[in-house]
C-alpha cells in the first residue's frame, strides 16, 4: 500500500482482480493503439489536420509542419507507452491533449464531411486516456476513494461512447456518403454483391437509429448486453475500413480502437465494483468520494 494513499477502506474490499486487470489491459490497449495510429498517419505524407493547420494556417513550411507534427505524435506515443508501463495517468495527458488538439484542428480546417462534429466523434480518442487516468487513481486509492475514481472512469467512458455513437448515428441518418461507400464497397469485396445506393441509405437509416439508441442506452442503462452489442458493432464499423478500402486502411482501425474497446472496458469496470456499488451506478457529478 502506498503510504500516501488513504488508509481507510470504509469496509469496502478491493475489487476482483480479473475485471480490474481487464480494465487496465483494455484501456491501455486502446490508448496505445490510438497514439500509434497518430504516429503512422503523421509519418505518411498528408498527416493529420494538425499538419494542415500548421502548413496552411500558420504558414509553416511543409517540412517544418511535418517535423512538428511527427515530433508531437511521437512524443505522445512515447509518453503513452511510458504511462502505461508506469501505470501513471500523468504520462497519458500528452496523448489526450494531442487527440483533443487534432479534433479541434480538424473542426477548424474542415474539408471533411461533418468535420464540425469532430469534437464529439473523436471524444473516445481523447477521453479514454482520461478514463485510464481515473482508473489508475482508483488503483492507487482504497475504499470509497477507489469507488469514486472507478465511477469517474466509468462515466468518462460512458459520455465518450455516447458522444461517438450519437454523432455517428446522426451522420448515418443524414446519409454520410463515406458511410454509404463503406457499405457498398464492403458488400462488393466481401460478398461480391452490388449494393444499390438506395439500399445502402436504407441500411444506414437503420444503423443511425440503432446508434442513437445505443448512445442513449449507454448513458441510461449500460447493461452487459448493450455493451456487448456496442463493442461488437463498433468493431464491425471500424473493421469495415479494411473490408471496404483494403489493409492499407489499418490506421483507421487503430484510431477507432477506443470505440470498440471502450464498451469492453466499461463492462469490466462495472464488474470491478462490488455488488453494492454496481447497483448504485450513477453519474460522476454526484460524488461518491468521501466528504
Amino acid at each position: 500500500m502506498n503510504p500516501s494513499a488513504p488508509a481507510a477502506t470504509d469496509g469496502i474490499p478491493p475489487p476482483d482482480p480479473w475485471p480490474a486487470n481487464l480494465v487496465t489491459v483494455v484501456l491501455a490497449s486502446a490508448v496505445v493503439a490510438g497514439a500509434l495510429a497518430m504516429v503512422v498517419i503523421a509519418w505518411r505524407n498528408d498527416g493529420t489536420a494538425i499538419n494542415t493547420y500548421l502548413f496552411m494556417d500558420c504558414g509553416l513550411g511543409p517540412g517544418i509542419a511535418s517535423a512538428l507534427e511527427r515530433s508531437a505524435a511521437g512524443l505522445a506515443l512515447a509518453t503513452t507507452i511510458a504511462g502505461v508501463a508506469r501505470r501513471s495517468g500523468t504520462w497519458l495527458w500528452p496523448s489526450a491533449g494531442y487527440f483533443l488538439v487534432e479534433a479541434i484542428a480538424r473542426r477548424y480546417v474542415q474539408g471533411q464531411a461533418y468535420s464540425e462534429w469532430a469534437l464529439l466523434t473523436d471524444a473516445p480518442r481523447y477521453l479514454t486516456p482520461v478514463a485510464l487516468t481515473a482508473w489508475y487513481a482508483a488503483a492507487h486509492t482504497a475504499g470509497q476513494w477507489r469507488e469514486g475514481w472507478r465511477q469517474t472512469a466509468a462515466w468518462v467512458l460512458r459520455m465518450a461512447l455516447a458522444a461517438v455513437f450519437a454523432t455517428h448515428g446522426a451522420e448515418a441518418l443524414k446519409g454520410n456518403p463515406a458511410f454509404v461507400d463503406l457499405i457498398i464497397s464492403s458488400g462488393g469485396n466481401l460478398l461480391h454483391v452490388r449494393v444499390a445506393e438506395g439500399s445502402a441509405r436504407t441500411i444506414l437509416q437503420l444503423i443511425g437509429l440503432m446508434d442513437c439508441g445505443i448512445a442513449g442506452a449507454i448513458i441510461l442503462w449500460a447493461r452487459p448486453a448493450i455493451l456487448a452489442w456496442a463493442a461488437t458493432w463498433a468493431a464491425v464499423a471500424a473493421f469495415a475500413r479494411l473490408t471496404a478500402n483494403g489493409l492499407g486502411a489499418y490506421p483507421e482501425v487503430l484510431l477507432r480502437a477506443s470505440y470498440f474497446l471502450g464498451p469492453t472496458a466499461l463492462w469490466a469496470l462495472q464488474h470491478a465494483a462490488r455488488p453494492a456499488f454496481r447497483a448504485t451506478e450513477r453519474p460522476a457529478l454526484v460524488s461518491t468520494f468521501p466528504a
Partner: protein
Amino acid sequence: MMITDPFLRPLARPASAALLRAIVISACLLAVVSAGEPAATSTSPRELPPLAHFRVTWMLNPATTALVSWTTPAQGASHVVYYDRQSRDGRLADYAAKLAALPARKYLTFPGDAGTPDGWAQNALLENLVPATTYHFVIASDGKVSREFQFRTAPADGRPFKLIYGADSRPARPDPKVPHLNRRMLNRLVAATVEQQPDIIALAHGGDYDSHAEWRFLREWLSDQELTIGRDGRILPIIPNRGNHEGREGHSTFEDMFFWPGRTTPYYYATELSDRATLITLNSNASKGGDQRDWLETELKRQRATPGKWIIVQYHVASYPSYRPVEASAAQRQHWVPLFEQYRVDLVCEADDHTLKRTVPIYEDKADPERGVIYIGDGGFGVPPRVPDTTRWYLQPPGFSTSALHFHVLDFTDGALRVTAIGLEGQTLDHFEVHAKSAASLAVP
C-alpha cells in the same frame, strides 16, 4: 495490483478529484456547444458595388445554354439580362433579346458570416443560343446597368478549341480580409492567356475555391474571379466542380454560387464541349460507388458510342495522389478507375494535393503506354503548394510531379489533345500530347 505513482498522489485529494471531473465535464460541454458551426474569423468585408460577381456557368448543353449570374446587395425587384450576337455598347433598347432573372437566391450564410453584408444571387438561364457564337450582354438590376460583357457558346461541330483546367484556389489562412495575391495573379494570367488564345472556351474549376464554402469567403473568390474577365469584357464560362472544402449538399454557399436550375444530381454531370469532346464532372464528396458510379457507367457508354470522341473527366480528390497517401483514394480506384479504363477515357483532371503532376499512363494499376489513362493535377490555382512524393511509381518518367502554382490549357486540335501546364510567371511547366487510343488496343466495352 498496487500502483506507486507519485504523480497520482494529488488525485487522492478531494480538490483534485473535483478538478479532474470538472475538466472532463467542461470538455464534454465544450464539445457539445462547439458542435455547431466553426468559430467566426475576423472579417472586414470588401465593399461590393451594386452589381458584382459577374459570371457565366456551364453545366449542360453549353452550345445552346448558359447561366448568367451576378450578385446584388438586396433581393431587388427587377433583374434583366439584355443580350445579342452583336455588341450594342450597352444601349438596352438595341439588344435583340432580354430575359428576366430567376427568383433571387440569398447566398447561404453561417454564424461566422456575421458582419458581412448579405448578398443575393441573380441567375438568368439563357437557352436556345447559337453554337460557337459570341453573345454580348448587359445586366440591369433595379436601375443599375452593368458594362457590356461577352461570352462564347461551345461549338457543336468538330472545330478546334481549348479549355483551361485549374483547381484549388484557396488561400493559406482563412481570413477574408487578407488579399489572396497568388489567386489574383493567376486570374490575371488566365485573362491574358485567353486574350492570346481566343479559342479557349471555358474554365473548368476542379474545386476548393476558398477555405470554407461560406459567404464571407466565397464572395472574395467571386470578386477575384472577375479578374479573369478580359479587357474586351469577355467572360470565360466556369464549369464548376465540388471540392472537399465546398461542404456537403444543403450545407454550403457553393450551391448558391453555382446554382443550376433543375439540377438533379449532386454536381456530377456531363458537359458537351463540342460534338467531338465531353467533359465529365464527378463529385468526390458524394458516394463513389452508388448512384454516381451507375450514372458514370451509363454516361461513358453513351459517350463512347461516338467514335473518336474525346472524353475528359474532372473531379477533386485524386485517385492517384501525389501527396496524400494512396490508400486514401481506394474507393475511387475501386469504383471509378475501372470504368475510365474500360471506356477508354482520354484524360483525367484531379486536384486536392496542391502540387503539379502528370502520371504515367495507368491501366489496372500498372504503367501501360498503350491502354493507360493519364491523370493530371493536383491543384495549384493559388493555394500554397505542397511538396509531392516523387518516389511513387506512377509519377516516374514520363510522368512527373513538382511543387508549383499552375493551371492547365487543354488544346483539342488536329486529332490530338495537347496539354500544357502554365506557371505563375506564364512559363510552360509541362507539355505533352494525348492521342486517341485505338479501339483495337482495348477490349470493346
